[in-house]
């Protein structure tokens, strides 16, 4: 299982490179640079140094004892990616790709962002490494994640509003890819999720797997055994694949992904409700109609509001190694408030989806690891606004 993907970037039938010819050469270059870097101790040394002194790794594995009475008495551990520099797991990938862009000699960076966490992480590493940063963000997301827009601009990034479609992550990704196609020779596309054409899904997975490697060691140290259940939220799926991947060979560890079930107006639960198609360069599950047209999605959480999902998750679902279930807006909000009030931690709305599912599925005596992928400062205005309307 750990040998996935194959040479064509396929996880079973999923993945591949469904992109215009113009960027195929750049993907070959990126793959070659990535393989060289990943087998180069000097690259790991630089990456590990920045993970320690810049990102603040390792992130703690925190036992949330006051939450456990809501979890049938299971022992709940939170993997605290919210404590990373910039407040989410996205920085793990951004630092790694900035180091890769340096190796490729590309000084211009384009990125897409939904919640703004990947945009902030990209703007941050570009400031640190002296790169020129352009972030595409949907208009609707600019409105609901305004603090992150301010942060990106302070960090020197250009934030480009995208008005097409529903003005969310999917549309931002379309524009980022079009920019990349147009400027491919001097531009690196710093994709934020374990999605897109090969080699992005594997490259982002490897850069994010630090989450699962640490969590595995930490839970072994705390409990003397592996967890029964590992839970993460899944939009494109980068924090989930990062947390899941080091546990894939541990057959007794159940892997559970929380998708955004949205509300009566719509969903973003791609694996639960989608069909096999192609979006943004790879074959995977997509929320699309029977004619293959991609549907508008809805989630309270901008970071999960996406009609696609990384190809490795599609494969994990079809092989049965991981399970995925939708969590509604209201359920996520319930978990959001619970974590605030019981543990003094304001989680990202994305992470609150994982938390709710973990509390539901935990059984007495179990050890459960939940990916707390980001902090919720960015969400406080949106939560307040929504609840003052209700």
């Amino acid at each position: 299982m750990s040998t996935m993907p194959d040479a064509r970037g396929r996880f079973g039938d999923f993945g591949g490179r469904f992109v215009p010819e113009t960027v195929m050469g750049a993907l070959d270059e990126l793959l070659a640079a990535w393989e060289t870097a990943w087998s180069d101790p000097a690259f790991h040394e630089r990456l590990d140094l920045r993970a320690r002194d810049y990102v603040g790794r390792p992130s703690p594995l925190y036992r949330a004892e006051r939450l456990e009475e809501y979890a049938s008495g299971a022992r709940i551990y939170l993997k605290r990616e919210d404590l990373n520099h910039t407040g989410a797991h996205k920085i793990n990938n951004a630092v790694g790709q900035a180091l890769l862009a340096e190796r490729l000699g590309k000084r211009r960076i384009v990125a897409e962002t939904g919640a703004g966490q990947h945009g902030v992480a990209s703007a941050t590493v570009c400031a640190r490494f002296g790169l020129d940063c352009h972030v595409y963000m949907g208009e609707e997301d600019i409105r609901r994640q305004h603090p992150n827009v301010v942060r990106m601009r302070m960090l020197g990034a250009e934030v480009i509003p995208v008005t097409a479609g529903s003005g969310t992550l999917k549309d931002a990704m379309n524009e980022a890819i079009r920019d990349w196609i147009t400027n491919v020779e001097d531009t690196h596309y710093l994709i934020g999720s374990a999605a897109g054409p090969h080699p992005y899904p594997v490259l982002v997975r490897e850069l994010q797997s630090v989450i699962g490697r640490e969590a595995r060691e930490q839970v072994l140290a705390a409990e003397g055994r592996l967890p029964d259940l590992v839970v993460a939220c899944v939009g494109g799926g980068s924090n989930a694949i990062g947390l899941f991947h080091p546990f894939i060979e541990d057959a007794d560890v159940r892997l559970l992904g929380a998708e955004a079930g949205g509300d009566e107006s719509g969903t973003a639960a791609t694996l639960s409700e989608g069909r096999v198609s192609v979006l943004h360069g790879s074959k995977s599950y997509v929320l699309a109609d029977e004619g293959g047209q991609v549907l508008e999605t809805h989630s309270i959480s901008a970071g999960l509001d996406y009609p696609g999902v990384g190809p490795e998750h599609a494969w994990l679902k079809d092989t049965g190694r991981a399970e995925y279930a939708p969590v509604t807006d209201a359920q996520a909000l319930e978990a959001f408030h619970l974590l605030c009030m019981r543990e003094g931690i304001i989680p990202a709305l994305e992470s609150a989806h994982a938390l709710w599912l973990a509390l539901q599925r935990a059984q007495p005596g179990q050890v459960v690891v939940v990916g707390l992928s980001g902090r919720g400062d960015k969400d406080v205005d949106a939560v307040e606004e929504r609840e003052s309307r209700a």
Partner: protein
Amino acid sequence: MRIETPALVIYLMADHDTVELAEAAVRGGATAIEIGIPFSDPLADGPTVQRAGQRALRNGMTATRALELIGKLRRRIAVPLIPMTYAGPVMAYGEERFCADLAAAGADGMIVPDVPHDEAGDLLEACRRNGLDMVPLLAPTSTDERIELACRGAGGFVYLVSVAGITGSRQRLSDRVGPLVGRVRPHTELPLLVGFGIASGGIAREVMDTGADGVVIGSKAIEVSEAEGAEGLERFVAEVGTAITK
């Protein structure tokens, strides 16, 4: 399919006015018609084709209706008909069934810009079984190795993308077209057609002067149709036709 050269391929989005526009384009001298089957997220397309695609989707266009439209066009015009769409709609329809139904409707080939030759295996087989040509796209950034491999499975013509970029009218011709024509020519006997950004007879003439065999015009044809209707399109196509044959 056999494309007459110098080739003038006009791209039109499948929509309610396509028959009228296609007939006008052929009267103006179009030697083939490319029919866009709209997709919600067309990564290779600029604002004009995106807008036309969104409009068609709002008007209820689907792959099934586009096939009916192609059938209707086949009965009315004689030049090659080449649908252009993306992997999403093809996969949703089913690759084999899509090719069979296209062939039955009278299409001659297919262009799918997000299925490069590396991923084309199944679709290429389905095209062959149904007598359709799969037209590959090559770009200034294509390596010689990729050019060789793409030409191996090619049919109809080879579509050269004039720039690193997406579709859309441009003011001038990129200086990378000439070298690209030169690099592709030794790998194929098929005509080499240049598209993306060809917005006037003048630019089309420059394309011919690089040694290419013709042009593909999409965004500009849509813009002219939007502004001046079928008559305007016929006039525009005739102008370009004159420019490339003189």
